[in-house]
């Protein structure tokens, strides 16, 4: 057992698992301190996620955008960029999807792909700006993407209200041919909002993995991210690759927006402030080790905490406990170096 934990080869998945375990332990301690029985709390959480088919469906609904923002942030990390701008890219993506969903009238088999594509393109364009500024003027992407988040929020809120038929809070419904929702999925999950988005997210993870690991394009993007001067030496187009990385990262975030606007809701919403999907994406990417498939799992986990925390509230466990657990998991995941050292020293002291 100890040898298994000490073996560095296993650290890749042992460390995230431990982070999650520690996160839940810390959550339990907080509950005990605040006078809540942690067993009750966690029972409520589990019931809130898989308690009935409807809740089960809502779990997947909550997870899909998180998987996409996770992929977005991870794509940045893998190619040497810190994309804090997933939030803004998500907002423009969700809006673009709705616009195409309302105003273009074509059969579903064209419409839906078109809607998704426009979300991806909108996100990519929002990512182009920081990418371009970084490549051309060496402006750090963190600064620019944060700025772009605010611009997106206010600009898109304004644009939604300006669409014909919009109220102060939302746009009109998109055409049915543009929606990801499915009567079938909804029916088998007792009328949850479950839609096809989850499959698209899995597809997204596969595309992520394929680009990064299997293509010369991904090889170049990683190379440029790790060492721009060596990439230049090897004849790669460094600036172009920085811009493309940021755009692809933005495209994933844009698709996260489509998950919400043409999956969960079927209309565009005016929101008061950012909903935090972008920042959650950082957590998802971190816990998922920036690898496509692990991100599906970590996205599901954070989706569960998000979906389950309202159920916890019903069992008179404060909703914030869910957030606290998330925060602890991220904290431990970010401390992975420390955990690795701890594992490496395991058992040594006893000798």
């Amino acid at each position, binding site marked *: 057992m100890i040898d298994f934990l000490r073996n560095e080869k296993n650290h890749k998945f042992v460390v995230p698992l431990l982070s999650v375990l520690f996160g839940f332990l810390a959550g339990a301690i907080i509950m005990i301190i605040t006078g809540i029985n942690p067993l009750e709390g966690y029972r409520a959480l589990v019931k809130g996620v898989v308690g009935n088919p409807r809740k089960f469906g809502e779990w997947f609904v909550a997870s899909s955008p998180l998987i996409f923002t996770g992929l977005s942030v991870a794509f940045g990390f893998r190619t040497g960029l810190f994309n804090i701008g997933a939030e803004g890219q998500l907002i423009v993506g969700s809006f673009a999807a709705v616009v195409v969903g309302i105003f273009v009238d074509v059969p579903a088999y064209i419409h839906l792909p078109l809607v998704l594509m426009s979300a991806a393109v909108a996100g990519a364009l929002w990512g182009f700006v920081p990418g371009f500024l970084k490549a051309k003027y060496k402006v750090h992407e963190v600064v620019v993407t944060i700025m772009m988040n605010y611009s997106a929020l206010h600009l898109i809120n304004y644009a939604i209200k300006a669409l014909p038929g919009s109220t102060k809070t939302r746009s009109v419904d998109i055409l049915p041919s543009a929606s990801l929702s499915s009567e079938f999925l909804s029916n088998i999950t007792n009328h949850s909002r479950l839609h096809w988005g989850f499959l698209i997210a899995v597809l997204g993870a596969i595309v992520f993995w394929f680009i990064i690991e299997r293509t010369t394009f991904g*090889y170049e993007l*990683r*190379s440029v991210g790790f*060492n721009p001067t*060596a990439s230049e030496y*090897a*004849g790669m187009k460094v600036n172009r690759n920085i811009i493309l990385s940021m755009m692809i990262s933005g495209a994933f975030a844009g698709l996260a927006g489509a998950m919400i606007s043409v999956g969960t809701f079927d209309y565009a919403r005016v929101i008061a402030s950012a909903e935090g999907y972008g920042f959650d994406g950082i957590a998802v990417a971190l816990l998922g080790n920036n690898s496509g498939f692990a991100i599906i799992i970590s996205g599901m986990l954070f989706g569960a905490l998000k979906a389950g925390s309202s159920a916890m509230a019903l069992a008179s466990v404060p909703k914030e406990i869910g957030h606290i657990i998330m925060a602890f998991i991220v904290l431990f995941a970010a401390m992975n170096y420390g955990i690795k050292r701890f594992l490496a020293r395991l058992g040594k002291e006893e000798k």
Partner: protein
Amino acid sequence: MEYIIEMLNIRKEFPGIVANDNITLQVKPGEIHALLGENGAGKSTLMSVLFGLYQPEAGEIKVRGENVNITDPNIANGLGIGMVHQHFKLVHNFTVTENIILGQEPTENGRINTQKAAKEIKELSKKYGLDVDPSAKIEDITVGMQQRVEILKMLYRNAEILIFDEPTAVLTPQEISELMDIMRRLVKEGKSIILITHKLKEIKAVADRCTIIRRGKYIDTVDVEDASEEVLASLMVGREVSFVVEKEDANPKESVLKITGLVVKDSRDLNAVNGLCLEVRAGEILGIAGVDGNGQSELIEALTGLRKIESGKIELLGHDVTNTNVRKRTEIGLGHIPQDRHKHGLVLDFKLAENLVLQTYYMQPYSKNGILNAEEIKKKAQELIDEFDVRSGQGIETTTRAMSGGNQQKAIVAREIDRSPKLLIAGQPTRGLDVGAIEFIHKKLIEERDKGKAVLLVSLELDEIMNVSDRIAVIYEGKIVGVVEAQKATEQQLGLMMAGSTTDKEEGDRK
């Protein structure tokens, strides 16, 4: 106290490799103790154990006769152990003083008293003949000076045992002899020194005793006085090493590279290459000799497409490549072993296999229609590490960062020579390599030449230039001041030319 440092039966493992296998090293007070071993033998690892960066799996360490447990570098500092790493650890936009006091700032009512520190540093600097300006910024001083700052850092912390990990690999010959003097002065003042170097001459020049390790194992400790360079080399490599490079006469053919009136600016916007003309032909090795900083780096970067050219013309195999991008030049037939392996040569976070196809990943068979072929890449990588004896813990799967410096260098050389480019530009190709590896690389360069390829060798080591080249061009202040036949060249003659004297130009060239 017979020994100031004793490392007894040290064992340190990394995934897939035992870097130190039962190694013993005993250092006497006041001596310069050399640590010699092939690339990847485990020298840096052993020193990192002594400095508290790694924890050994087995063995004990005694300092001044007492058992100690060095779990981190602060403890090492406390015991009077200091280390100058292979790659310096300085803050570039800080001054010398700020760098030296970093972590040990002398405070007065909570405020840092820089003036006091600067004065102390000046005194230390004077005492040991270091000649460092405490108020200069790191980014403005030479590599040699930066190294002295690292030395001062140790002295400021009252270190008595000084570890130097390949200090001379980055220095010019002039700086090397100055460093040797500094070391002699340090031991005279009572310090003890552990010196890692691949250059046997340096060991002969300053060291008292030498411990040899090979593939992680202890071989022997000898008195330097009684051991010739040949003996040291064969102890280290385990076979005889030949120091003279054997080669037939060159058989030069058509012109491969033609440079006319080349002007290139350096990063300070001065003309580093200043109207340089040169021609390299197929089937010859042309060596460029010169004192560091006379435009060699800028010349290489301009030739390979990494630096913009102000004026002049570069012709590669009949193509005008003056304004051609890097990729295109590579495809016309250019290979490049860069001087700085970490800046240009490798993506340290890539696996070794990925680095070995850094120039060819987009070509068949390594990829097709943009899809990588992992099998082919692995096959090639395995072939290269076998042929060039690139050693590491997990073979082609090793993260390049975890490899020893010399083996990183061998990986680059393997990648570039294997492509057999029509023109190979080799910038200090053997920097940081052990004598066995150097012999092998030199042989490879000559093989390329004999295949009819052209090699442009740029090196600060006159020995290397004189041994390997067929013709030698001397660069001075951005110009070629003369070209001589290597066979006829003498060290004195080259030395004069490198200092700017132009009297030794070839017949007919005289103005």
